[in-house]
């Protein structure tokens, strides 16, 4: 690898370059291998199949809706954690980040205990309204929000902390209420962090599998998202699973690139 002439500090040391190159290979090789291994014919079949179209659409819709919920719930929570000094703040932060380290299947089991048809809140809800989350598209959204919200919250909190409180202070001296300050100063200045948090949450939702299938089962058109479809397809047809995985990869990359250009601050 050659470096540009603007690198005035000298040649980057091999002790850093080699692990960096290894990291790139580690991340790129499996995906490249998957592209190579995919049979073009099965790719064509997969693209035309109704289950794929249904699952892909469901994945995109549920991930996007989950991302919006994460924004509506996570931004205020992140603001609270970053800007308000209250007793138990550290405890609250620790609690809301727990789902980040949970195995997804545990998340699914926990969701079932809370919102399942015989769950702590699920049963009264079912009795009162006739609605239950599991095995519905709303259940998929709920599972996505549960696993993504911590990532979104922590990312946005980081963005808010990076933006700092100096401008909030200035706004307060200019007579702005906290709500006005939040809308007109805090959020605009933390926008890169908020956007990064939303993209992170969206990506996390798109790839969510364990909690979703545990909580919602596998109903085509209703709860069968792309990862679930790929898992199920693998049971009967490995080639089809490979083709579906490739479609998922392409869609994920395409969306991330589009978001990056539009929202994320491009690196120089």
């Amino acid at each position, binding site marked *: 690898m050659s470096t540009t002439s603007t690198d005035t500090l000298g040649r980057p040391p091999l002790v850093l370059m080699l692990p960096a190159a290894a990291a790139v290979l580690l991340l790129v090789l499996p995906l490249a291998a998957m592209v190579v291994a995919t049979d073009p014919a099965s790719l064509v079949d997969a693209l035309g199949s109704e289950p794929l179209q249904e699952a892909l659409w469901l994945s995109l819709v549920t991930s996007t809706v989950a991302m919006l919920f994460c924004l509506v719930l996570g931004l205020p929570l992140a603001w609270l954690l970053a800007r308000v000094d209250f007793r138990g703040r550290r405890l609250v932060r620790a609690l809301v980040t727990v789902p980040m380290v949970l195995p997804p299947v545990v998340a699914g089991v926990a969701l079932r205990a809370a919102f399942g048809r015989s769950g702590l809140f699920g049963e009264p809800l079912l009795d009162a309204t006739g609605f239950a989350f599991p095995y519905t598209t709303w259940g998929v959204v709920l599972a996505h929000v549960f696993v993504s919200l911590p990532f979104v919250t922590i990312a946005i909190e980081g963005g808010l902390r990076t933006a700092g409180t*100096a*401008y909030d*202070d*200035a*706004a*307060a*001296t*200019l*007579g*702005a*209420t906290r709500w*006005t300050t939040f809308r*007109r*100063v805090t959020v*605009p*200045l933390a926008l890169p962090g908020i956007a990064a948090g939303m993209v992170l949450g969206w990506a996390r939702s798109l790839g969510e599998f364990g909690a979703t299938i545990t909580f919602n089962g596998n109903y085509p058109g209703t709860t069968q998202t792309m990862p679930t479809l790929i898992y199920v397809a693998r049971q009967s047809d490995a080639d089809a699973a490979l083709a579906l995985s490739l479609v998922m990869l392409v869609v994920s990359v395409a969306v991330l690139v589009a978001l990056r250009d539009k929202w994320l601050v491009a690196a120089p």
Partner: protein
Amino acid sequence: MTARTGLDANLVVPDRLDAALAVGPGEVVAVVGPNGAGKSTLVHALSGLVPATGRAVLDGADLLGRTPRERSVGVVFQDQRLFPHLSALDNVAFGLRSRGADNRAARARARDWLERLAVADLADRRPAQLSGGQAQRVAIARALVTDPDLLLLDEPFTGLDVGVAAMLRIELGRHLAEFRGVTVLVTHDALDALTLATSLAVLHQGRVVQHGAPDEVAARPRTEHVARLVGLNVIREGDRLRSFSPAAVTVGLQAPADSTRNRWQGVVRGAAPHGDAIRIQVSGDRDLIADVTPAASRELALVPGQQVWLSVKETAVTTYDATS
């Protein structure tokens, strides 16, 4: 609007500030003091950004029970803090809109203030596209446009080019003359204190150790910091202070022959041009400054590390009480 009676404050921030200050309406108090004396803490306590106890009454109203937005203050921060995502115009209009003005009226008034500060042509620029002096003008307009009862200026000329600062100082003086509220101006520049202020408060370790007319304080400084600020040497003897000009100091390599009590041995710490002279800093039992001619400086080899004797004639020394 309530009658203007000025500011009467005794603000306490544990371990940082315990400062009493009384300023009449239309007056400008310059607050000086070394780094860490509590100058910025005082500004933040007055604005409400740092919680303080004690007393703070502005035009008859108690400030301490109020949030920053409920105090009618205008703040020019040391780092300006212009909102980077808003144009100069919207920065200035922000305070008006926050206080309920509609967009059109707020912008019209903001444009008027940008004009007063001679930066109306930059109204649509973002802060990042402004020079330091231009940004400071916008910040001053933003603080004054809401017609606050209390104007807080935290080192408004720091970081500006000397020429820009001089120009802005003159203009700010004009606006302060028209301003009917109380102004607190934090500065580390004697020139600000002497040209803009109606009174000078010296802050030392969180306390106001001297507060009086600027020329009075300058003539009889009670702290070494202020003495340095106005370019005087000051020596404490019991409860009396003795001050003398660096120009009156005689510098020699040997102890002076006469047995004057005003003589000190020390080591040259630094030297810099000061007008036509060279001002040298000497540290020993006392930290003192002395002005010598460039010729004498060369002759005596007054470079850092050189041992010297300083002396001053008794007739050049002003002696006054340490407390008033």
